[in-house]
């Protein structure tokens, strides 16, 4: 892997962010709206439930973690879409650039922008609603890592789908987190799901994170074995996503898709 080529992909994105408020604002705006909305909902639930259960870490923490995964996925796909929208594939792939270098560049920029968004979320959730991420204890690190890897995997998978199906298919990519969220139990235990949904939930790494988070919030010890399964699954999905993208790329080279890739023209 050549650092200069990875750096070029990162630099290309940084140039776009530089002096472009319309690109920088969404990094913070949507997460801030989510935190405010769910922060007030949890505050209201704490006031009316009188159960002594603290909804802040359970609900607001869940929103924050889920947003983290979503932002990472979108960070990777947005960086990819910049090349889709500017029809830049021929320029990029007729160079010594390897797909691994291209994907590494996308992932680094996607993760960087997401971490900035996460930092803003943490500050807002802590300052506005008293949520301390440290209340999740030692389970926080593996949980964030699982969501981080899952977000990257989803982002690379989304990029592969758009490369294969064409620019119009970007609308299939944006709703992916929403489609996945009912299965992974962001706001409720997996046990409330019907049996068939539970089977799917067990195959999705984030479900292990949210189950673990609920246990920790309830004062139980962190389920390390479950987190290990989630971690192994997220690594497996990341490898599968990279293999999928590489296979789509090979298809694109075989059929000439890269060379003729332009808006709305891909069959």
């Amino acid at each position, binding site marked *: 892997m050549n650092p200069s080529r990875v750096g070029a992909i990162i630099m290309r994105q940084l140039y776009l962010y530089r002096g472009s408020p319309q690109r920088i604002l969404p990094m913070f705006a949507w997460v801030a709206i989510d935190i405010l909305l769910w922060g007030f909902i949890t505050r209201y639930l704490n006031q009316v439930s009188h159960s002594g259960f603290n909804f802040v870490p359970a609900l607001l923490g869940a929103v924050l973690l889920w947003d983290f995964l979503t932002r990472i996925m979108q960070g990777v796909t947005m960086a990819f879409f910049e090349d889709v929208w500017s*029809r830049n594939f021929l320029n990029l792939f007729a160079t010594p650039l390897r797909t691994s270098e291209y994907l590494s560049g996308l992932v680094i920029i996607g993760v960087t922008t997401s971490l900035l968004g996460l930092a803003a979320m943490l500050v807002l959730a802590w300052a506005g609603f008293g949520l301390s991420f440290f209340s999740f204890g030692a389970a926080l690190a593996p949980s964030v890592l699982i969501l981080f890897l899952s977000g990257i995997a989803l982002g690379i998978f989304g990029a592969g789908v758009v490369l294969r199906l064409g620019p119009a298919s970007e609308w299939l990519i944006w709703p992916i987190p929403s489609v996945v969220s009912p299965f992974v139990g962001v706001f409720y235990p997996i046990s409330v799901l019907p049996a068939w949904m539970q089977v799917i939930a067990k195959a999705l790494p984030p479900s292990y994170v949210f189950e673990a988070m609920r246990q920790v919030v309830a004062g139980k010890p962190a389920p390390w074995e479950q987190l290990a399964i989630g971690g192994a699954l997220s690594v497996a999905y990341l490898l599968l996503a990279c293999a999928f993208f590489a296979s789509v790329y090979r298809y694109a080279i075989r059929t000439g898709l890269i060379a003729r890739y332009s808006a709305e023209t891909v069959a």
Partner: protein
Amino acid sequence: MTASAPILSVQHLCKSFRDLKAVDDVSFEVGAGEIVGLLGPNGAGKTTTINMVLGVLSPTSGSISIDGVDLRTQRTRALSCTNFAAVYAPLPGNLTIEQNLRVFGMIYAVKDLTARIEELLRDFDLQRFRKTKAGLLSSGEQTRLSLAKAMINRPRLLLLDEPTASIDPSTARDIRASIEAYAKAAQCGVLWTSHNMYEVEAVCDRVMFLSRGKVLLQGDPKQLTKDHGAASLDDLFVQVAHEALHDANHPALHPPSRVGVPAP
């Protein structure tokens, strides 16, 4: 063709899309310092050939080597010394000229990149647009940017697909001169497609006529014109394209009887 090892060697190249043979057993070489024109009517297989040389389209069969490096097995190495400019591949319009050159310079790991960018901005008269986004440039300025990008890594092989399209005659002449000078000085091989036969005749050391994916003729443009009794290269182009289109059994399709210079 020069006696030294070819910069580009294409051997028995074929590309099929289902039943369509877009490129059919094409072989040719481009020598160091040589400018070769790739001519043919629309759909002849020129761009398909160029895309295969650029590594963005895999051949059905055949081999391509660039500066002695096999493209299929050592893609990154082969493409490190290659570059291209094409009217259908504009650079990202949301980056400035300078940013575009820096990004592509980094991709090619160009040493002393800042100095190289300055040199190209000067050579292609783009200095005053350095902070202008590429999307805001006129088509002629965008073409000059594409050419500057194509030179960023001082390529050994340069592929130019209609490089002077959208450029005024005066600028086109300057650009042709600078490409010719670069090719001779750097001993760079150039594969040049154009529909401007005047330009091809002026610039190319050798031309190849492609039709239906096959090389029909190749040789010195002036000599070919003379040998086939055509008034100009333009007339020869029309004549060959017309005959090949209307007669699949035309002798031009069956080398070597019409071939000016045998394919290597």
